[in-house]
């Protein structure tokens, strides 16, 4: 008699266990920070706590490096009228990274571009083409070499302005990825306003599939990349722009001319384990134009996807087996 009950109980419990244990828990959170929409999708038992920690971190980072918050370090630096300003360790780190990348890209990425972008106002209702004289005046204030740093303090000439929007999201993505890793999260997709960072691989051990935005139709993608444990960042002329007399003026500026970058490129995508680098590189490469950009990638071991104005797509060697075109509007070139 006893045995029968044991057997029944065992069968019951076994069945229940099989039914109950199904997959890893997914946590997904949408939120807004740094003037953009963000989403973190993480998997695992500790995912919810880790994601909450990430959101808190990003809000705190924004408090340090925001240009518009009056209590931020960067606001203080921009309004110090040439005086030295004491910065938090975090702000110092972001500024140092920005300077390093500006130097590396020979100023094609420049964190002091703000006077120019303010003048043009692209992405706001007041977007306009300024007079050349205005552009020339603003240009004098744009030069990353104007930023002086000494330990955790920095100084900026009067009128010059730091805007870390160009690497802020990338920096945040790197830090968030680290927070997730430290919390034991092995799989996650971090989307910070179009900057992607993927952690690990999908459940079945397959790499993540990341779409690259179609410059002709910003809601769609024209190609995909199969990647794991890396960051994918795209910059293009479709993000923020305004049009006048049939000409498109995008939000990425050429620090040389003071005009929106007008090259043979529609968009640049960089794949790198460091999202901060990728963020700055996409801007710089876009400004450089395809020829110089490809040389730069070769010299600095950068993996990138270029979309040219003639719908030709160029992919660097290391990405070719991960890349696939999904739109017939584009042609692929080795």
């Amino acid at each position, binding site marked *: 008699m006893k045995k029968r009950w044991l057997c029944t109980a065992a069968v019951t419990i076994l069945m229940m266990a099989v039914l109950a244990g199904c997959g890893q828990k997914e946590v997904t959170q949408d939120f807004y920070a740094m003037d953009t929409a963000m989403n973190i999708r993480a998997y695992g038992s500790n995912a919810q706590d880790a994601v909450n920690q990430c959101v808190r971190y990003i809000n705190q980072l924004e408090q340090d490096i925001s240009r518009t918050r009056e209590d931020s370090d960067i606001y203080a630096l921009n309004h110090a009228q040439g005086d030295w300003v004491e910065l938090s360790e975090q702000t110092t780190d972001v500024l140092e990274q920005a300077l390093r990348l500006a130097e590396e890209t020979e100023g094609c990425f420049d964190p002091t571009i703000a006077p120019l972008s303010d003048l043009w106002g692209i992405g706001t209702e007041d977007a306009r083409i300024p007079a050349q004289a205005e552009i020339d005046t603003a240009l004098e204030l744009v030069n990353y070499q104007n930023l002086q740093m000494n330990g955790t303090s920095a100084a900026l000439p009067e009128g010059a302005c730091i805007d870390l929007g160009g690497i802020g999201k990338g920096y945040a993505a790197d830090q968030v990825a680290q927070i997730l890793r430290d919390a034991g999260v092995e799989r996650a997709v971090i989307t910070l306003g179009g*900057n992607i960072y*993927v952690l690990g691989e999908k459940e079945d051990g397959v790499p993540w599939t990341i779409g690259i935005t179609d410059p002709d139709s910003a809601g769609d993608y024209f190609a995909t990349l199969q990647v794991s444990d890396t960051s994918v960042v795209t910059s293009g002329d479709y993000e923020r722009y305004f049009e006048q007399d049939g000409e498109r003026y995008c939000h990425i500026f050429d620090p040389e001319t003071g005009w929106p970058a007008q090259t043979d490129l529609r968009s640049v995508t960089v794949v790198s384990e460091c999202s901060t680098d990728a963020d700055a590189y996409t801007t710089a490469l876009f400004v450089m134009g395809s020829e110089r950009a490809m040389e730069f990638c070769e010299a600095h071991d950068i993996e990138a996807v270029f979309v040219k104005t003639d719908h030709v797509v160029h992919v660097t060697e290391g990405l070719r087996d991960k890349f696939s075109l999904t739109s017939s509007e584009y042609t692929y070139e080795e």
Partner: protein
Amino acid sequence: MKNKIPLKLGDFALFAVIIALACGVWIRLALMQTEQTYGEIVVDGTLYREIKLGGTEQETITLEGRTGEVTIEIDGDRMRFVSSQCPDHTCERTGWISRVGQSAVCLPNRVMIKITGINQDGVDAVAQ
């Protein structure tokens, strides 16, 4: 003999039929699910509505965002921002979205639309 569960041959046939039926329904559902996509409307970080896509559904949804009214159109398997009271109108320019992983956002209004579902030929995220 007495200690064993006195199962008969027919019992196993019954169990087999039940399990076969369960598997049949499950496989059928799984097949249906891989094709099923959903349109999500997320307002200020929280899910506002989830709409089953793929049918012949035509719907226009108007909701209040941070800076004004936002109108979203559902058309069969795709959705888009039709109009939005916001300064930049980037969301309207994004156009239709229909594939899993695609999204469009109206930043000033904090309204986001995205396509979700079992990922088959869609993407996990889109670099923008």
